[in-house]
């Protein structure tokens, strides 16, 4: 991609597709409101600065402040209440939209078909399959399978981050954390694994690969 194309793009990871369908979905709503509010603020600001710019010979505003005198208050309760209630409703709406997709992320039993144990240590990944085999750095998953990652750390905090899919969960020593992933939602191929929680010297090199195999023909 060219630099200009990159700058104008809004790349979304695959897990967001679940809440990007249709104009009322979370990510589209957030996008529309962000653009709308930015245009509103920037437009208002530029309009006001241009419209009320100081020109030679302009009279001073009648309520111009003078040193040592509290200038009194400009107030319009109706409009102030409006721009308090408006944003309040908007953020409640965004919060409401944010709740539904959480089913995909939170600890709910959905009949996992494959459980992979992830063992993170400074600075490598170990994956243990149900048959007891362990691989280092690379995990290979069958297509169309609901996978549960059960993650443990032997030393410090790490985070298991699949950037292409938008999935991330911290790996916390003394605790088992879990992350769910349905390989049916992504194309077969090789994707990177990053450690996303700073864990010391080798943090930027704590990389791995996740391979989704081709479905058997």
């Amino acid at each position: 991609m060219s630099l200009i194309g990159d700058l104008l793009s809004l790349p979304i990871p695959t897990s967001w597709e679940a809440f990007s369908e249709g104009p009322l979905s979370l990510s589209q709503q957030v996008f529309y409101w962000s653009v709308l509010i930015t245009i509103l603020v920037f437009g208002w600001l530029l309009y006001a600065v241009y419209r009320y710019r100081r020109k030679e010979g302009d009279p001073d505003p009648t309520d111009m402040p003078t040193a040592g005198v509290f200038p009194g208050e400009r107030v319009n309760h109706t409009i102030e209440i409006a721009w308090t209630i408006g944003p309040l409703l908007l953020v409640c709406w965004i919060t409401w939209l944010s709740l539904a997709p959480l089913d995909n992320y939170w600890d709910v039993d959905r009949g996992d078909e494959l459980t992979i144990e992830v063992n993170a240590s400074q600075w490598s990944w170990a994956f243990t399959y149900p048959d007891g085999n362990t691989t280092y750095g690379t995990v290979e998953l069958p297509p169309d399978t609901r996978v549960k990652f059960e993650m443990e750390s032997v030393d410090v905090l790490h985070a298991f981050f699949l950037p292409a899919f938008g999935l991330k969960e911290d790996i916390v020593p003394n605790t088992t954390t879990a992350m769910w992933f349905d390989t049916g939602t992504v194309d077969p191929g090789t994707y990177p694994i990053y450690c996303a929680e700073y864990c010391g010297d080798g943090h930027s090199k704590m990389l791995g690969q996740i391979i989704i195999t081709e479905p058997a023909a």
Partner: protein
Amino acid sequence: MKLRNVALMFAIVALLVGASLVPNATSRKDGIPASLGDSVTVNGCNCHGGDASSSVALALDVPANFTGGEIYTLTITMESAVTTDGENQGGFFLSTTQGSLASTDDSTQLIDGYMTHTAAGNDQRSWNVNWTAPADDTRIADFTLYGNSVNGNGAPDTDGSDQWNRATFAVPGANAMVGPEEISDSRKVFYLSLVVIGTLGAVVVGNRMVSTGQSVEDVFGEFWGYLKPWLTTTDHKRIGLLYIGTGLFFFFIAGSLAMLMRLQLLEPDNDFMTNTQFNSTFTMHGTTMVFMAGMPIIFGFANYLVPLQIGARDLAFPRLNALSFWLLPTGALVVYAGYFAGGAGDVGWTGYAPYSSGERSSSPGTDLWVAGQIMLGASSTLTAINFLTMIMRMRAPGVTLMRMPLFTWSITVAVFLLLLAIPVFTIALILLYADRTFGTLYFSVEAGADPILWQHLFWYFGHPEVYVLILPAFGVISDVVATFARRPIFGYTSMVYAMVSIGLISFIVYGHHMFTAGTDPLFRFIVMLTTMLVAVPTGVKIFNWLATLMGGSITTNAAMLFSLGAIATFTIGGITGIVVASIPMDIHLHDTYFIVAHFHYVLIGGTIFGFFSGIYYWFPKVTGRFMNEKIGTLHFILSFITFHAAFYPMHILGMMGMPRRYATYDPALAELNVFVSYSAFIFGAAQLLLVWNILRSWNGGEKASADPWGGWSLEWTTSSPPPPNSFAEIPTLHVSDEEAES
């Protein structure tokens, strides 16, 4: 006890000791047993003669350096003048300080952590063993190898017919520091000249003091007269300037560190810095920007202006105020001393335990980082008490709470947050210091400590802290926008309520930094909602600023431009704040460059632009002279454009999944990263315009009157610059006619 018995006892002890030293008269065809392991480690193969012999050549084909966690096959070979007919040729003993050893075939065996031969391996003089390198590639693995070549008679001979030798091998990890670093010649010259200059200076000064009986003050003459007031002052105006000067100094230091990071990120897998150096650089950049640049600039303005704005002669506790200031450079020196102690702290500005509390984070700079931060925390706590007391007790007549300028209100809320938040951080740091230094176990997960305790303590402080950084900027913007629109601020009362409610909410949102940390889902939901709520009072403030402009007579000079730029940039930073407050989105965006973009939009676009505006706005009050408008406008235009060029693309990099705190990135992201780096270089260079402008305007700017811009608050009623005691007499704040009528 009789002498004879004592002698007997000595004899028995001597015999026992001797027996343990006397060669054990059994051949060890099937390897060295665990019972002999320690003896071999200390004494070598002394069953076969007391001394090692150089006639035995031992080799171990170790790699030049190792990669963490990798498995290497090492071949041991022994060449010796002692020969046999093929059976019973000898054996070996191999131990290592790092990683683990394993057999590859039946000729070797692992006993008690060391490798030795087996009966099958006794017939050869070359063996293969596997070595798994430790995961930590900053370590150095030391191997100790003993080889024994025997004559094959089945018994240990001490007469020289069996020969053995010892050899050691060191294998550094790929990222290990080997040996002390060589000091380059140019550095030696630099250090030497410092020593010479220091010594000569001491001799000259000392000589004059002794020979002419002068005091230090006399010797330094006029220079001392200039220096002493700054070193000993308790005047809030001088301390304010000291704070701002220190803050700007560290702003440039931390900015230079940012430039170094962008140099490293000019290409993927760049070798400009090592990982360790990169980690120290982002740690020091963040820590410096927040605690040594941002907070001091804010408290410099607060020191100078709040007493003037409320008509007080000084802070409540002027000497305490001086202590607060001097703790800042002292704490900063301690933190920066890490660079001279073998590497600055490398735990990130958030210092997450258990990494920061464990032995893996062994950089001496981290101890100094913790110690210095404790000092900075003490400084902030004292400052908070000082300001709260002054604002509550020392307002001039007419300055009621609801008639304070909004900058003073913002400082009031900020110091209240500091008073409640900073002690928690200081206590967490003390616990961390105890863990690191005295071996306590507050954050030790091995001992069963809560692994995310630190995150709770840190963010309980950390989130109010970022509002401490942004609220005073809101105050500056409010004063500047009203003044240059020549109208009163729109909705003064709602502005105050908005700031107070932002302050209150800030204590119940911190969990949004821990959406992926495995915390309780209900906890995550609550903080998502409260975080979203922050947008409401923040939106009120933005709309009030915009409404203030309406019907005004707007001058767009440098001060106003920076305030308007801050409103625009902060709006974007606020919106991205809502994006990352939404848990489904944050799960992807957390700890990526999207977060880096978000908080730089808020803290540079909001705080720093706001305070740049403050510099242009209050410079005439402080010096009695204007800053140059042309340079100021150029400074704004360059800063605004290059800021967005440098930080907007980081949103996209974050969405593409580039993690923060990485010294490298996916090569596919190279174009954007190069663009970001060059924009950042120009942004950094543009800030030199501010320094130049300040220096040339300090004595050479156009003269300014007491109220050059038409501001209303009390600082504009005194002369520019203010007299040493600030006001000729304590002023009274009057009320405008319309206000008095209503």
